[in-house]
């Protein structure tokens, strides 16, 4: 937690309403996200109980599992969900755009838009991940066949859950995280996992402070939890009798019908308030202007979507249960790089995020007081353009002479610190030598060198390219590290015992 964010929390608490910690939106928002509000059955391993799903506030579809312990019904739920999710995904497989690759020697295509899934909280992401895990290895033949859409849904849900781990991806959003990335509430991180409480702070009803609104939102009798776990009181008082009534109805068509309606009503009552909150939260985010680098990151999500769609089309197998050693290392490395680049990009896009780095001594802001835009360094083999500028700052400068700095205003330009001189009133004069971002000639085009009077932010953070690590291919990996001779899990055609009949017995019931 940065001091700046912590201060915003203290201010939120004092003001009784959430305070901004971003001035732009750092994630992409789709025009047509697919919102999913799932509920699970208490005590079971990620057994779906119900979900509200839809791509518009007035398009909620309620799916329920009247007997969550019955595996047939679970997979019927999965097939129904697939009936909504898969056509939604397909609707983005229309127009493509060409992207140059390999330094322009080649071209590939990607979809111009991509799907976006939104769940209320990180628990929703976990639900999708586990639901993907429990469906992607299912067989569509054999003893306990499932609908062909079920394993496909499982792979796509797994795809989205994996994207959600990538910092900066907007393919699958947990709304509580998305909101608290932009606003600080006056409550702790644990309490920030509760969507109704977060919205209580962001947008308290008239006459209530954020704290009061959040406290109200914690009372499950007033405000059902945002899932996937249900309120135990609801389970005991409403759900258990309703499920029992459905089970007791057995073959009595009329009784079953009314029991089903009863269940639907109860579950809708638990889900609808969260559904409203999710769309309200998305509305709050939409009111922020997007950061300059958001589109670039979304292009990465579009790439990933395109790539996975092609993988599925080509008959590629489901994601492995666990990564092998090399795959795990590659993945970790990729996530670390994404995290570093995402942090820099947010700072470049948003002065309020950059302020956190200024406080940490990684950036400072000053005024340009002198410039020598035509300076040429001819000590080398051939003369090069190396303008110098002097910046005066009131902030502490924690970088040494020789350090390379960057400015978000001209991200392609490097500024090397040449002199650091303390000046009057605790100010510091910084002389910088510029290179890059000024064309190839010996005269800097207008605007490429900061002018006297310009206010400039200089930082050690670089938005430049981070080199990819090199890892051995699976064939080169010693077997002690997950390489051959063990069969690559990805192409594992025979699911292990976990997905055999014991796991897929449709007759199995718990009660």
């Amino acid at each position, binding site marked *: *937690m*940065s*001091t*700046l*964010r*912590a*201060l*915003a*929390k*203290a*201010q939120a*608490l*004092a003001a009784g309403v959430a305070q901004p910690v971003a*001035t732009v939106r750092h994630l992409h928002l789709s025009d047509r996200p697919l919102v999913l509000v799932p509920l699970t059955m*208490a*005590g*079971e*391993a*990620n057994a779906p109980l119900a979900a509200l799903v839809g791509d518009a506030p007035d398009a909620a579809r309620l799916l329920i599992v009247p007997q969550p312990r019955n595996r047939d019904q679970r997979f019927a739920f999965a097939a129904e969900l697939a009936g909504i999710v898969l056509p939604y995904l397909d609707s983005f497989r229309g127009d493509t755009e060409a992207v140059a690759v390999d330094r322009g020697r080649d071209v590939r295509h990607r979809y111009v838009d991509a799907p976006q899934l939104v769940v209320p909280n990180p628990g929703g992401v976990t639900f999708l991940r*586990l639901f993907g*895990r429990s469906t992607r290895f299912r067989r569509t033949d054999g003893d306990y066949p499932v609908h062909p859409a079920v394993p496909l849904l499982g792979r796509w849900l797994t795809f989205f859950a994996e994207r959600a781990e990538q910092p900066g991806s907007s393919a699958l959003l947990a709304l509580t995280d998305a909101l608290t990335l932009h606003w600080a509430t*006056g*409550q*702790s*991180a*644990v*309490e920030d996992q509760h969507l109704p409480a977060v919205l209580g702070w962001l947008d308290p009803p008239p006459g209530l402070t954020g704290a009061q609104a959040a406290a109200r939102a*914690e009372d*499950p009798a007033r405000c059902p939890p945002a899932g996937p776990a249900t*309120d*135990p*009181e609801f*389970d*005991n008082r409403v*759900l*258990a009798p309703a499920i029992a009534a459905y089970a007791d109805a057995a073959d009595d068509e009329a009784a079953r019908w009314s029991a089903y309606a009863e269940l639907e009503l109860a579950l809708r009552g638990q889900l609808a308030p969260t559904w409203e909150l999710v769309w309200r939260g998305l509305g709050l985010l939409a009111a922020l202007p997007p950061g300059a680098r958001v589109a670039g990151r979304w292009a990465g999500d579009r790439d990933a979507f395109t790539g996975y769609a092609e993988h599925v089309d080509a008959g590629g197998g489901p994601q492995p*249960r*666990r990564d092998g050693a090399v795959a795990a290392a590659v993945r970790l490395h990729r996530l670390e790089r994404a995290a570093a680049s995402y942090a820099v990009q947010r*700072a*470049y896009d948003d*002065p*309020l*995020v*950059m*302020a956190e780095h*200024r*406080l940490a001594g990684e950036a400072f*802001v000053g005024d340009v007081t002198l410039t020598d835009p035509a300076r040429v360094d001819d000590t080398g083999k051939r003369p090069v353009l190396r303008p110098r500028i002097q910046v005066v700052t009131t902030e502490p400068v924690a970088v040494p002479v020789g350090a390379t700095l960057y400015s*978000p205003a001209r991200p392609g330009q490097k500024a090397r610190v040449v002199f650091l001189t303390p000046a009057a009133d605790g100010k510091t004069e910084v002389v910088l030598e510029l290179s890059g971002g000024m064309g190839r000639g010996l005269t800097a085009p207008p605007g490429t060198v900061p002018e006297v009077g310009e*206010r*400039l*932010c200089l930082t050690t953070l670089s938005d430049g390219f981070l080199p990819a690590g090199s890892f051995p291919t699976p064939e080169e990996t010693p077997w002690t590290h997950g390489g051959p001779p063990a069969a690559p899990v990805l192409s594992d055609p025979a699911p292990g015992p*976990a*997905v055999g009949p*014991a*796991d897929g*017995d449709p007759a*199995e019931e*718990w*009660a």
Partner: protein
Amino acid sequence: MTSTARRLAEIRGGGAPRRHNARTTAALTGNPGCDRRAVLDSAGADKPGLAERVGFPARFGQSRFAITRGNAFEALVKADGGAELLRLVAERLGVDSTGPATWTDLGAEDRGDPPDATAQFGRAARSRAALAAAAPVGADDPAALFDHPLLGLDVAGQRVHLEPDLVAARLAGRFHVVEIKSFPVIDGQADPGKVAAAAIQSAVYVLALRELLAAEGHDAALVSSDVVLVCPRDFANRPVASLVDVRKQLLVLRRQLDRMARVDDLLARLPADFTADPSTDPERLRRSLTSVPARYAPDCLAACELAYFCRHETRAETAALGRPVREALGGVATVAEVLALAAGSDPGAPGQAEAAALLRAAARLRADALAGQPA
């Protein structure tokens, strides 16, 4: 009754001390720095009742679905005289389980709540006798499983009875605590929060079992600090056993129990009229509770019945926002103080110079950026 016991009984009010279940025993080690909790737990006070009475009811409801599933899984695992359980545990420990094994249910009767004191006494004695008699002597002892032992632990000078849903397994010359939990282990991974909770509970049982053996003149080390956790595997109900090393939890537990054993120190600091009797008038009860220092942290919400009360009490303090926030604010205690230091309207106490400078800089930078200064 010792004077300490008498004082604790007075504090508690009329009732018997609360029995500890798995969650409350594990919770004994949570927030060890909190005096309020140490006093209430030592007295065996009715914390849910207290919370309700002072207007901040706890929310630790349990879904009956979860209970049903838990019981069903346990029954499944223990079926056939524990044959499957023994096989799983032996396999996980890497020992041979062939050969005869015995299964003893030490809690066949008396599962009533509140417990019948005499029956409970009998059960405790039975557990003690059976387990002591079965103390391992060598690696070739036949395997023996003991279900539902009633264990006891001294908490703040009081004998606390624990009714763990555990099996003590004698295998290859040692006792192992076996805990059956119904949360799934999917692809070798389980919810880390649940595993952590299970580990601390198991540590309580390991400790109780060790004390039992030691009291009977056996070596406490005969009880392994590796406990066996049996959970459903993946999405089905087939059990899988995992080993959890609880040495760290044992240390934490020991420390907290030692602290509670010195409850006299705590009692000496209490106001003479301190009460935790839920039948007291709410206003007086609130004042009474507030008179003992607490140490609220957001973690309390998941561990202590008094959390909403304590949170309300600390709502103006930075600690209520969580430890990372408080630390980022230079450790300054109250929100008002933070804001005054940040605004520069309060120079701060002599020791606060650094925090004050940090907060002032943060406030200035925040204001700058919100006013649209460049990045």
